[in-house]
């Protein structure tokens, strides 16, 4: 209840001006090159492994989908975060908003990375999405009834709609935010606040259907109306964990962003904690309802994930994605300490990848994972390209919104609980 009505201006204007030096320009593209090399190596290794697997690249495509979904989810989380900050007129988060914006804008790269999947579906490949097999679409009664939605052309069209909507909206936020750096116009903030509400509406609908298209339709018989929300909760956990890690890296390695203090970490930790609980809540609700009603057409999805090696993965996720971080992130000191927060964020980021692995692979490998190395190299490859894009977007730009009218409030934030 003790509240602080943000005490303004502990930072002098001169200090604020010096924030312009907070950028990654000194890297001079060296990091980008490294990232590209890692990306190229990873993808080549993945392709070679995929060809060696001798299953018509089925394994490769699933791994590739996993990797693209994983990085897209970080961007989607960033996008939602930015829009939410505008919608709620948040003051505390201004210092981390630019980093979130970079994550969000990287979604255009994810669109390019998703292109191979769209093309393979258009060319009639059913090694990833079995509903694209015309024989099955004719004979399987359930798939036949879903053909109006699950067909290659409509699938491709939807992906175009999703990615263009996301790219368009993130670019608008990004451009306006960069413009504000130069002109300091408070009108920009008001304009983006107005834009944020419809943006989130579009975000909710597109993300939901994207999750259905990408992951739920891998098993075209299965359905769950909460799936979109589950996917969204994962996006937020992944993004916030990544955000904490990036902030930690920039502070520790490059001594940047010193204005992000324990009070901001505390808030980011609380958000991460909150969304992690939200993820557990949604996951448990979905499981309980299906477990309890015990309708075979739904339980089959969990049956696979509950037996054998996948069962062990499920248990590991329950512990690693919820129980341990729940206890770990609960104390105030854990959220305020940079190293501890980064450590728990790393745990959650890894578990987020495991979550997607668990969503994607059991449909294809019923008996348990056989070639995790392929998925790892795909994650590395796509990750390299994603990081390269991230770095080039960050470029010479300030990592803090210099002229945001709420920046002083953010700098002065005091976290008492």
């Amino acid at each position: 209840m003790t509240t602080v009505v943000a005490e303004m201006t502990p930072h002098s204007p001169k200090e604020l001006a010096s924030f312009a030096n907070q950028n990654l320009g000194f890297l001079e593209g060296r990091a980008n090159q490294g990232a590209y090399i890692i990306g190229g190596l990873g993808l080549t290794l993945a392709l070679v492994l995929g060809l060696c697997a001798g299953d018509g690249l089925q394994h490769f495509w699933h791994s590739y989908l996993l990797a693209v979904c994983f990085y897209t989810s970080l961007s989607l989380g960033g996008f939602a975060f930015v829009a939410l900050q505008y919608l709620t007129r948040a003051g505390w988060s201004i210092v981390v908003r630019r980093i979130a914006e970079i994550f969000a804008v990287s979604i255009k790269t994810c669109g390019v990375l998703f292109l191979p999947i769209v093309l393979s579906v258009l060319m009639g490949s059913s090694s990833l999405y079995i509903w694209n097999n015309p024989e099955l679409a004719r004979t399987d009664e359930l798939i036949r009834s879903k053909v109006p939605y699950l067909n290659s052309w409509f699938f491709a069209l939807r992906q175009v709609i999703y990615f263009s909507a996301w790219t368009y909206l993130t670019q608008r936020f990004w451009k306006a935010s960069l413009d504000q750096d130069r002109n300091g116009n408070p009108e920009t903030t008001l304009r983006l606040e107005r834009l944020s509400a419809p943006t989130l509406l579009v975000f909710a609908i597109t993300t939901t259907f994207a999750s259905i298209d990408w992951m739920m339709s891998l098993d075209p018989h299965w359905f769950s109306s909460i799936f979109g929300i589950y996917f969204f909760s994962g996006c937020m956990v992944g993004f916030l964990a990544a955000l904490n890690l990036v902030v930690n890296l920039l502070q520790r390695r490059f001594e940047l962003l010193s204005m992000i203090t324990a009070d901001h970490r505390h808030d980011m930790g609380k958000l991460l904690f909150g969304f992690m609980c939200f993820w557990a809540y949604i996951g448990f609700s979905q499981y309980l309802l299906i477990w309890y009603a015990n309708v075979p057409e739904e339980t089959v999805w969990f049956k696979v994930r509950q037996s054998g090696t996948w069962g062990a993965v499920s248990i590991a996720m329950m512990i690693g994605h919820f129980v341990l971080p729940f206890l770990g992130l609960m104390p105030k000191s854990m959220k305020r300490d940079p190293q501890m927060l980064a450590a728990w964020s790393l745990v959650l980021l890894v578990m987020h990848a495991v979550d997607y692995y668990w969503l994607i692979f059991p449909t294809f490998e019923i008996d348990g994972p056989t070639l995790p190395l392929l998925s790892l190299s795909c994650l590395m490859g796509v990750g390299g390209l994603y990081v390269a894009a991230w770095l080039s977007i960050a470029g010479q730009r300030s990592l803090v919104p210099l002229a945001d009218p709420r920046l002083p409030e953010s700098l002065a934030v005091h976290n008492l609980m």
Partner: protein
Amino acid sequence: MTATIAPKEKHHASHPVVDESPLLAAVIAEFPSAGAVLTAAKTIRQAGWTDWDVHSPFPIHGIDDVMGIRPTRLPWITLGAGAMGITVALLMQWWMNGVDYPFWISGKPFFGLPAAAPVAFELMILFAALSTIAGMLLLNGLPRFSNPLFSSEGFRRATSDRFFICISARDPMFDREVALKAFSDCHATAIDECWAPPASERKFPKALSLALMVLFTLALIPPVLIAQKRSTTTTEPRLHAISDMDFQPKFKPQRTSTLFADGRAMRPQVSGTVARGDLRADSRLFKGLEPGPKVHRTLALLQTAPATPPVARLVSAEGGPRDVAERLVALADPPPADPLDSQPWVTSFPVPVTSKTMKRGQERYNIYCATCHGLAGDGDGLVTRRALELEQGTWIKPTTFHSDNLRAQPVGRLFHSITNGVRKMPSYADLVSVEDRWAIILYVKALQQARHADAKDIPSDLIPQLRDLPKE
């Protein structure tokens, strides 16, 4: 602990002799704003006072640091109570539904984590929340209805719009003059003294204690009554709160009724009507008899002379004493002229003869018949063999199905035997459905034919396989 002012118990301990004069408990100073009291609090702390406190209408930001208040233990209480809530809830559900009174319901395990989670969660919250509030009150020394601070008229504004610092008389360096001086140095707008009433007036109000005692006694009555009811038996019927639910205007089977002339509550079937599912017009299927006028006569005959007296069924099932059994054996002797021989039994199956029926018949036969008649119908089932081994005189060995007499019996006659029983064999009508009886007869016929078959009867494509059978 807050305890700004000496609690009366302490006073009692240090002053065994009842003191009749009011005691100075604290001096208080009033300040107009949160900022002023914050500044003053710094001064007071620097002056070395230890037993003092700030009173304000709302929590002042930053006061904890100024006063040096250490973080409270409350979160640990909450955490512990929450963990206890989960544990209690899980143990309770496991024991009640899994151990003490397990019962199957909707295919759920007796105790399963998914179904136990909601209650565990709720109890965790309940325990934690109750302990948080109770812990907060306890640590704050609340409730506390008698406080010397309330003796100051000015202090009443501490909960509205004024800010106070209070130095307790229990402070080791307490001295009235010094404290007052300290306050005036802090620019207090008003200074006051708080007096604790003399010990003689600090007694618990008599009326209140009487009321509490009465309440306590009254509160004892329900548990005592419950305990008494639980530990005694009674011949009185229980209380009927809603009598028309306990005594419903309806008749139970086999009761009398004055409503009907015959005095029976159960009504016989109205003549000329058939109950649902009781229409058995197809004589071939339900009786094994060809339809015709003769049937009715036969039925009447059959109804008056049951094949097996009910007593025999009872005894054979329980294996009664030998003398009774011997009499019954005599009774069970077939009547010299069997009227059954001359009935118009059906000779063909009134149900479709398919391999499915045959399979069904085999299965039913093995379940219901083979125990006595033997798997091949030789009358050497396990029960029979055991009975003969024990030399049970009451036991009548079932006839073999492979005798000429039985082989010649029309299928309708066999149906009659299963339906109504024969000699000591009871009726199987209530155990085996009509269709299943025909299926059993079909299988029995197959058994009979198999016993008397020769190579000609075997389909030619099966003969090669027979050669491969292992030789016995």
